[in-house]
């Protein structure tokens, strides 16, 4: 027996926040590659640092 949400539309779209964020990450990959190319591998350290801090504080 289906349970509806209280108001229309009753159809579910496929869009999710996770999907959106993965798209953002996808779009960042070329940027990271270009940065490493121009400014050296130090950029990767920055990125790793930023990502880990973000993950720790989010979780």
């Amino acid at each position, binding site marked *: 027996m*289906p349970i509806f*949400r*209280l*108001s229309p*539309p009753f159809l*579910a779209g496929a*869009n999710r926040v996770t999907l959106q964020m993965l798209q953002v990450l996808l779009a960042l990959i070329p940027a990271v590659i270009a940065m490493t190319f121009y400014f050296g591998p130090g950029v990767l350290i920055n990125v790793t640092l930023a990502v880990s801090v973000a993950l720790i504080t989010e979780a």
Partner: protein
Amino acid sequence: MSAPLGDFPGGLKLPGHKKRSTQGPIRKTPISKQLVLPLQQHIGAAAVPIVEVGDKVLKGQRIARAEGHVSVCLHAPSSGVITAIGEHAIPHPSGLSAPCITIETDGEDRWIDRQQIKDFRQHSAHELRQIIRDAGIVGLGGAGFPSFIKLNPGVHHSVETLLINGAECEPYISCDDMLMRERADGILDGVEIMLFALRASRCILAIEDNKPEAIAAMRYALSGRSHLSQTEIVVVPTRYPTGGEKQLIQVVTNKQVPTNKLPIDIGIVCHNPGTAYAVGRAILHGEPLISRVVTVTGTDVPHAGNFETLFGTPIKDLLVFCETRRQPDEPFIQGGPMMGYSLAGDDLPITKTANCILVGVDDVAPPAQPLPCIRCGDCADVCPASLLPQQLYWYSRAKDFDKTRDYNLFDCIECGCCDYVCPSKIPLVSYFRFAKTEIMNQERERHKSDLARQRHESRLERLEREAQEKEERQRQRKAALAATKAAKAKEEDSTNTAEAADSVTEEKA
């Protein structure tokens, strides 16, 4: 022969699920033992009963008259006896009751005398509109606006185009599709009358390209009527919400209906094929609007299809007739999955605006806890009215209603596209509806308080005027009194002096 099609922004490609209910012909639903007819099945003032409990009525007999201008009559869908006039649950999202007339049918289905008009051109447009009004015809697309008003060009407008909206863009619904396939001639009868009443120069019949059978049927019917040369069938791409009045106008004529204006302001009037068919039946056959085609479909309806159903038929009976797998108390949807509303009970009647009963949806949206808005802008991309739903959401939520108006909240057609694509699953349309009702309430309150203030001010003015008048009168009275007094005193004076003079002369003598 036609101009290139226009386009509207946004929109969605949705899975249609229409095949499910277009496998068989339109079937007639059997007459229920009891028919419940809400007095208000249209936009405007509720009809007023003109029958009493215990009266015998015939099929098609008028049982309630129109009240005021924006209103239509109501008719008995079958012969029988009136058993009750009073409150009954109606199919409304609020679950409220409303005044209804209940008829116990006798199964004979005996018609009243039908006044058929063979040549409607012998009558004036005004007479035809009156008949259409008396036949209780309202827009059968879903809103239920009295049709006779939309067939009146009025003195300020001239109507160039009659647009018949056969787009039927919402998933699952197929009642217009089936009607166009099976009763194309009847629809064209209505179109001729509508063109005559509107004095319109051309008619466009817009049909989405996912209905090839309907297009073929309408083309075939049209080819048999050489005098309808000003009518053309335009095939529009399938996209939700092409069937929205303003969106369809944009697609078909490349014109936009301005904000706060109606299509008639740009010379276009839009009607539903079902309405056209009803108009034809009313004028040429003398049959008032007493039934409609209802799509019954969904994942829990194995034999989905379209059913010609008398108004007042309990949805319960219809669902039993269609052999649905619905559990008792399972909620279902009236209307489509994008713009319809869910109903809980099934002891509710089919009304003039019930185009579809949907039991079970394929990709049903579960109740979800909305996440915060990430301002991705996907909602703005799909909005067919070019609004910014994320801003509207923000301001509706903050109850900043002036701002929502600045962002043209009232152009929102509540199509639900923004809701559908929102990754955070925010119930945007609910927010917009809330804001709209809230603004309308405020407006009403403002109007009321304006009236009250005016009344108060005029009362104060009146009191002041009365006080002044009283004072004036008093002053006048006083003045008059003083004048008479003075006059009297003078008189007395003069008599006194005369007397004195007399006595003096007497003394002298």
